[in-house]
Structures are given as C-alpha cells and as structure tokens.
C-alpha cells in the first residue's frame, strides 16, 4: 500500500486556508494548552476543549448524547457539516476530539495534517477574533460502541490472546515507571501493561513537523515491526485514553484496520482494577500474568 487507506480523513493547511469562509466547513481547535487558542487561532475556528467541553464533569465519562447535541448546536455544527480538527502536540487532542465526534456518529470529520505546528511553519496568520456561531439543529445517535472498548471487553479480548497496542512510553509499558512524581491521583497502583499489548509510543506516528508519517512508514511501524494485523480486532490504550485516540485514528483511517477500538479507561483503570492480569517487562505477554478469576467477568445481577 503506497497511500493511506482513507486519505480524505486528512486535509492540508492549504485546503483549510481555501475553506475559511465555507459555511459547510467548521474548523475546530483542540489543545493541551487552552491559552494557545486565545493567543491565536485559525480565522473562524472555534475551540472545543477535551476536558471542559467533552468530558462529564462529575462521572468519569464523556458528555452524554444530549450534551453532545447541545455542544454542536452552540458551535454552529450541523449533522452534515464537515468538521476539521487541528491542535497542538501533533494533533493529539484533535484526534481525541474527533474520536468523541465519531462516538456520536458525526459523519464528516477530518484532521488538518500537521496541526498548529505545520500552520505556524507555513507562516500562515493567526487570529485573535472572537468567533460567534449561529445556532444549529443537531440530533445525534447513541454512542457507537464499535470504536470504544470498556473494561470487561478488554478482559475478554486479552483472555483470547487478541492484540492490543499500548501507546505509552517504554518505561510505563514495562512497569518501571508507575506515575509522574507528585501526581498520585493520576497514577495507578500497579505498573506494567495488559497481556498481549505491543508497545508503540504514540508520537512515533508523526513527523517532526507534526504531520503523520507516510503510509509506508506507518505500515512498517505497526504491521512489520509488531504482530498487529489489519483484520484482527485491536484495542489501543494509554493512560487515560487520549494519546491512544491518535493511534486509533492512524490504525483505523490511515492504515485501514477493520476493527480497532480505543480503551479510554486505559491504564488509569486497568492498573487500579482488582484481580486483572498484568505483564511487567518488555515482552507483550509473560509468565508473570495471573489469569483473571472467571467470576470477574460475571455480569452484575
């Protein structure tokens, strides 16, 4: 394969610059650092923040369907709008926002290849204008479970020796590093990885300028250098499911994996779960992973 499986999922900075006034297109910025949007954004782009806008502020979950509809309505997004995501850090948060939009079935989502970095390197202009949105109508379907893995599904998945991809750093993967110093609440009680997970740190998917690596390079990284396969069910995870949404995007749209899910519970859930199997060290599976007791999978009465 010489080209991306779904090349239309990516648009260039030129494409975005040519569609700035297009009413059928909404440009959405999502960043690690919120003040970057305030400092300067693409003219007409709105900001959707992963923490404040996309997450439920009480329960550890995303906004519900009604919340998603409200968010789109307030931001001038209709079900047929082409939504183009971009942001800082290799579009990491842009991919996360795109994943949530796909969770609620938004049809036409794209990523501006290279994000803020490429736009800046191209010498394009930034705007500090406040962007007003026309109120739209939006009806969303219920969440699409085909792209989101929950804990019990991951338990079954690893038990049947299916593959996962752990996109954290090698130190987090092996279990050498448990959590960042002074971040006990963002840490986990156990270190290591889910049995069957290969380790491909997320940022390896991207070039220095923030764009995605070529199809050929991505094939080598994911298909030749690991045991991952396009037709095998695959689950991606990281610490809280954000870095892995970029890997999910790469596997699903650029490499054409037919069944890939993001496990947003990720290590913050797995590494704190009682009695789930964990592998430490550099091998995907190992002898030190006790099997989860069968009754762990018993559904609640």
């Amino acid at each position, binding site marked *: 394969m010489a080209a991306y499986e779904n090349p239309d999922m990516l648009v260039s900075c030129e494409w975005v610059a040519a569609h700035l006034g297009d009413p059928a297109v909404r440009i959405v910025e999502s960043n*690690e650092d919120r003040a970057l949007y305030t400092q300067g954004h693409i003219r007409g782009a709105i900001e959707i923040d992963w923490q404040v806008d996309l997450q439920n502020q009480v329960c550890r979950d995303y906004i519900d369907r009604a919340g998603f509809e409200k968010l789109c309505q307030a931001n001038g997004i209709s079900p047929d709008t082409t939504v183009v995501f971009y942001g800082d850090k290799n579009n990491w948060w842009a991919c996360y926002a795109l994943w949530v939009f796909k969770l609620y079935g938004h049809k036409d989502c794209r990523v501006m290849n290279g994000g803020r970095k490429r736009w800046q390197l191209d010498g394009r202009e930034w705007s500090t204008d406040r962007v007003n949105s026309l109120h739209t109508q939006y009806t969303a379907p219920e969440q699409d479970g085909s792209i989101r893995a929950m804990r019990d599904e991951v338990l079954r998945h690893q038990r049947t020796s299916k593959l996962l991809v752990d996109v954290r750093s090698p130190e987090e993967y092996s279990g050498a590093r448990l959590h960042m110093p002074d*971040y006990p609440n963002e840490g986990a009680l156990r270190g290591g990885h889910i049995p069957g997970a290969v380790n491909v740190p997320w940022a390896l998917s991207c070039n220095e300028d923030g764009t995605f690596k070529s199809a050929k390079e991505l094939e080598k990284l994911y298909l030749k250098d690991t045991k991952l396969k396009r037709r095998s069910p695959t689950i991606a995870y990281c610490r809280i499911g954000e870095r892995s949404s970029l890997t999910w995007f790469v596997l699903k749209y650029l490499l054409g994996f037919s069944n890939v899910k993001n496990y947003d519970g990720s290590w913050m859930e797995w590494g704190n779960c009682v009695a789930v199997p964990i592998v430490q060290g550099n091998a995907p599976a190992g002898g030190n992973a006790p099997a989860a007791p069968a009754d762990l999978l018993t559904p609640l009465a």
Partner: protein
Amino acid sequence: MNSVHSRLDAIIGEYAELDGREKLELLLDFASRLPPLSAEYQARKANEDRRVHECQTPVFLWLETQNNASRLIAEVAPEAPTVKGFVAILAEAIEGRPPEEVLMLPDDILERMGLAEVLGILRARGLRAIVGHVKRSVVRGMTGELA
C-alpha cells in the same frame, strides 16, 4: 512592601470580574512578562537538574534566596502559555519576599482566580503541582540541600 499573600489577593481580584476568555487573555499578559533566562541561568540549566518533572511541558525553576529575599527564576516552553502565565504570577508574588511567606503560598490560587473551571481539573492539578514544587525548593534551600 506587600506580602506574597496580599499580592496574590490583588491578582485574584483582577481576575474576579473577567469571563473565561478574558481570564486566559490576562494569563497570556502575565506569560509575556516572564523574562527570558539570563546567560548565567542558561548555563546552569545545562548543568543542573532544574526541570519540574511533574510537568509534561518543559519547565525549569530556580527559587533563589539572598538576604532573606526570594526570587523565582523560570523558563517555560512557549508552547505552554498557561503554565508560563501561572509561573509568572507566582514569580511576581514571590519577588523580594522572605522564604517563610513563600512557604505559605495557598493551594487554591487557581480556584480563587476562577481558572480551575476554565482549565479543567487535570490541568489545574498540574499547575498546583508547581506550587508544591516551589515550596519544596524553599524547604531544600532552608535545610541547605541546595548550597
């Protein structure tokens, strides 16, 4: 000279009336006032472990005390203006004040500024870790660990 506390109160007062967007604009104002590292500190940065490891973005901090007057010297990557702005606020509040006052830095600065809500709990937690880092630097200075 005003105490660390009263300076922070004044900054928090400035924030009180602003909407979310204006709060971030004011934070960017503070960020732009953080001076670049001098040549001396550039050299020290290469030789000393001053990275704040609690932060995902590169942040380097020195808490210096001379004649009972503290000074926060810092370098924050330009791609992290929120962190840079918050560090600049701490630096302004601390400048010239005794270390005992720095140790009394409150933990709820972001909540009182109304920024915790704008930034979300995870980002606010990251910034709060910087306050803890600054306080630990004071303690290490007092116990002579950083001669």
